[in-house]
């Protein structure tokens, strides 16, 4: 038994998220089963009673997010989790959390969509998470881990961010990250929750507190929105996270998060020694998005290539950051398709061969293969 792995546990991403939440002082968890995040619910059911916390299986995702709203209003560290369809049902609640400035950690282990779709991994909820699938001008801090260890680390941090900014924080994983087992070390310091002064606790000996998002007096809602936007500016300045791999001399820079980023790293390893100069920028915070690093890299790179398990969602943020400074290519798989490192390499070689068109969404060749000859029923 080698010592380096001594403190490690072999956990699924879902279990690691649960353990990290407990470490971060979260003692309230409300959730509803949905594959591929069931291990999170199931694990919380076992662990919360052990640590004196509350596990409650809600009657729906809507109930879960509003139970979380309640515990957040009461000043407690609280978490909920789901996967794509369930997260769609939480959109009103997330907008309410943002509108009431309540801290809350929400985990989305994305699966293939739209609709019922499938349970295989996907990154097609990027827009929903990052642009805001709910109503109104709000922002959710979105963190995208790429390993089980990072799930643990980011869930822990998510609670701090949520409290610091009184804002919901989403951990955006996928079916693969949620269900994959890897060794994890829970290395951070256990925390206990301090009840903030704005919480509803019973107004014993003090002026009452009110938690609300309703601003019916003309001008108040706009003033509140301005305050929110200022807060978001601060987050954008302070909380950007990303990883760079071999970007120093890279001609082509891959941009990918989560599972896709790992596959890109595999691609980098495969071509190391070939003389090809390929780098990777891995956004860890999807909102705030690492715009500045991309702009910096755009000055020297030849091209970017965004790799996603979607039709090209983060692609838009990359383009917005890079603007016209550099061509931005795309390689995507959809609906449960996971790109392989070979496909990524093929795409990169393709970019280096100059006959290609730039800047437009390009469907993966494999995908085109799959889609070939499909009956296109809908246009008369």
């Amino acid at each position, binding site marked *: *038994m*080698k010592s*380096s*792995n001594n403190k*490690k546990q*072999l956990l699924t991403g879902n279990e690691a998220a649960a353990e990290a939440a407990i470490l971060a002082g979260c003692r309230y968890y409300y959730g509803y089963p949905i*594959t591929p995040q069931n291990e999170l619910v199931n694990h919380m059911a076992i662990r919360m009673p052990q640590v004196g916390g509350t596990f409650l299986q809600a009657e729906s995702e809507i109930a879960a997010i509003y139970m979380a709203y309640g515990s957040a209003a009461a000043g407690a560290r609280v978490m909920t989790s789901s996967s794509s369809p369930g997260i769609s049902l939480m959109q009103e609640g997330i907008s309410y959390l943002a509108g009431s400035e309540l801290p809350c950690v929400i985990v989305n282990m994305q699966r293939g969509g739209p609709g*019922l779709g*499938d*349970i*295989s991994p996907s990154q097609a909820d990027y827009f929903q998470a990052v642009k805001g699938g709910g109503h109104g001008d709000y922002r959710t801090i979105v963190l995208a881990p790429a390993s089980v260890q990072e799930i643990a680390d980011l869930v822990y941090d998510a609670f701090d961010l949520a409290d610091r900014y009184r804002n919901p924080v989403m951990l955006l994983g996928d079916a*693969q990250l949620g*269900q*994959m*087992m*890897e*060794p994890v070390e829970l290395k951070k310091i256990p925390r206990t929750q301090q009840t903030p002064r704005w919480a509803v606790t019973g107004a014993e000996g003090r002026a009452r507190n009110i938690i609300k998002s309703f601003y019916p007096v003309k001008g108040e809602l706009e003033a509140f929105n301005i305050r929110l936007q200022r807060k978001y500016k601060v987050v954008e300045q302070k909380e950007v996270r990303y990883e760079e791999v071999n970007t120093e001399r890279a001609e082509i820079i891959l941009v990918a998060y989560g*599972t896709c980023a*790992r*596959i890109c*790293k*595999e691609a*980098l*390893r495969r071509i190391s020694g070939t003389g090809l100069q390929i780098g990777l920028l891995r956004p860890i915070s999807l909102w705030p998005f690492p715009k500045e690093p991309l702009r910096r890299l755009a000055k020297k790179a030849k091209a970017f290539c965004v790799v996603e398990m979607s039709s090209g969602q983060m692609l838009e943020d990359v383009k917005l950051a890079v603007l016209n400074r550099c061509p931005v290519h795309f390689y995507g798989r959809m609906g449960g398709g*996971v790109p*392989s*490192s*070979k496909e990524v390499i093929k795409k990169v070689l393709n970019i280096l061969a100059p006959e290609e068109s730039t800047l437009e969404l390009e469907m993966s060749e494999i995908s085109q293969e799959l889609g070939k000859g499909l009956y296109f029923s809908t246009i008369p």
Partner: protein
Amino acid sequence: MIERMILIGYGGQGMMLFGRLLARVAMLDGKQVTFFPSYGTEVRGGAACYHLIVSTEEIFSPVVEEADTIIVMNQPSYLKLKNYLMPSSHLFLNSSLVKEAESFGEVKNIYRIPATEIANELGNVVASNMVMMGAYNTVKNLVPLPLFLDCLKSSLSGRKAPLFEINKLALLRGKEYVKKVYLKGEKTLEVSVV
């Protein structure tokens, strides 16, 4: 070294347990490891497929694109393995249930283990996974057997404790079978270092 494995079988055949156990033992043995299920569907009853990578270096993609080892437990699963094959792959088939319909081209290392029959003889059809483990590890020597047995024992706690012996037995039968039929006294293969 890196060992990239695909385990594939019907939902009830214990491949999940097998994979988790192997992953855990490899971790305790100081290796890097990733293990994940890649079910086809949200529904019951289909083939369950697991990707397991054990490596001395950092593992980037957890997805097995080309497998060093594939273990196939039943007929419908058998039909799904072709994508992962390389000429150097080691293929372990549960020959009790897999009726081979096609050849595997350049693949040399094919081990046909009647795992279900052997397990049935021991009186526990689910132990077929351990028969395969015995055969597999004998050929590829991925993990130290004593450590594996320790972990197996601790995973079968409480109500399930009585199952340890039969599982251990199944493992040994798998080992014996593969030695007898395939290795015929040869030294077992070294794990390929990539």
